[in-house]
């Protein structure tokens, strides 16, 4: 069974997700994990699927007009993830070069693995929200490092525990 990582990027339009999913279903691809969003009006979809070869999937996606696609064979999931403590980092402030680089470097320096990230630029306001798994007990020191980095960048930063609601 082939496992493929596929990205599809292009101008957003009605029906594009259906077109991608249909093209892949047509070659027997089973979508496992996928995510889709709009980034400043661009359609952006990343997914993992199993079934066809990379060549078959590429051919199926050729019929989609106006989008850029990339298909790559990957090895099955290496780790289950979920190690460490879940934290959320919020950053907001005036837009400037290097905010994401500086903040994520601090998280990496603390041994933290970013599991989800989104950034938005609205007007002159830049907002970054990252979820990260940190080694047990690493939160306090990272908070201090982030405060220094944020002060140098002239932005506000908050680091807090993510609180899963398990019912």
């Amino acid at each position, binding site marked *: 069974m082939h496992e493929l990582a596929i990205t599809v990027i292009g101008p957003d339009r009605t029906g594009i997700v259906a077109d991608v999913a249909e093209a892949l279903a047509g070659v027997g691809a089973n979508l496992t994990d996928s995510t889709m969003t709009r980034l400043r009006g661009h359609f952006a979809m990343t997914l993992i699927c199993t079934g066809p070869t990379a060549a078959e999937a590429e051919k199926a996606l050729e019929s989609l007009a106006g989008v850029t696609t990339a298909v790559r064979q990957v090895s099955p999931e290496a780790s289950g993830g979920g190690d460490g403590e879940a934290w959320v980092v*919020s950053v907001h402030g005036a837009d400037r070069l290097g905010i994401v680089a500086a903040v994520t470097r601090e998280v990496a320096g603390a041994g933290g693995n970013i599991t989800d990230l989104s950034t938005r630029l609205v007007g002159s306001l830049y907002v970054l929200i990252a979820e990260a798994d940190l080694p047990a007990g690493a939160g306090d020191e990272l908070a201090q490092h982030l405060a220094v980095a944020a002060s140098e960048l002239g932005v506000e930063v908050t680091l807090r525990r993510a609180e899963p609601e398990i019912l």
Partner: protein
Amino acid sequence: MTFPELPEGRVLPVVTAPATVLSTVGDEVDPTDPAVLQLAADLVATMKVSAGCVGLAAPQVGVGVQVFCVNVVGHPKAATVHGTFALCNAKIIEASRWKAGREGCMSVPDLTGDVKRAGRIVVEAVLPGTGEAVTITTDAFEARALQHEIDHCAGNLFLDKVAGAHAIYQRKVYL
């Protein structure tokens, strides 16, 4: 509970992020200072002319102090409602029934976010003008509005408390 009448207020321009005042801890005020009473009236006047606005804090009009007003009258998510009122130096002394909900902010007009807030709170504050100490117990949407405004007075935005990377949303229309 009845709140004292405020003088005629002026409509002030609302400051938006990334203004520094929005991220600065507000100073406590002397509630009997006539300037504080006028500020409270101005906040109410500005809130009233802003469509969909249920609360406004002094940092949002560029003044870094602990004064805000709230009015959730008629809001579908409100339960306990105290009408239109302004508070100074407010502190949350009890918080329970935590629940996530979507909120927006006039100072972050293009985004909304999911934020966990207490569904029942007890707030201690003093009233502008008289300086009378009050304790307000409230719940549901009025509790959320109070927490949002008290956060403003402490230099925090809802962005500092959103639930996760996918808990902020681009806003299409300011309601």
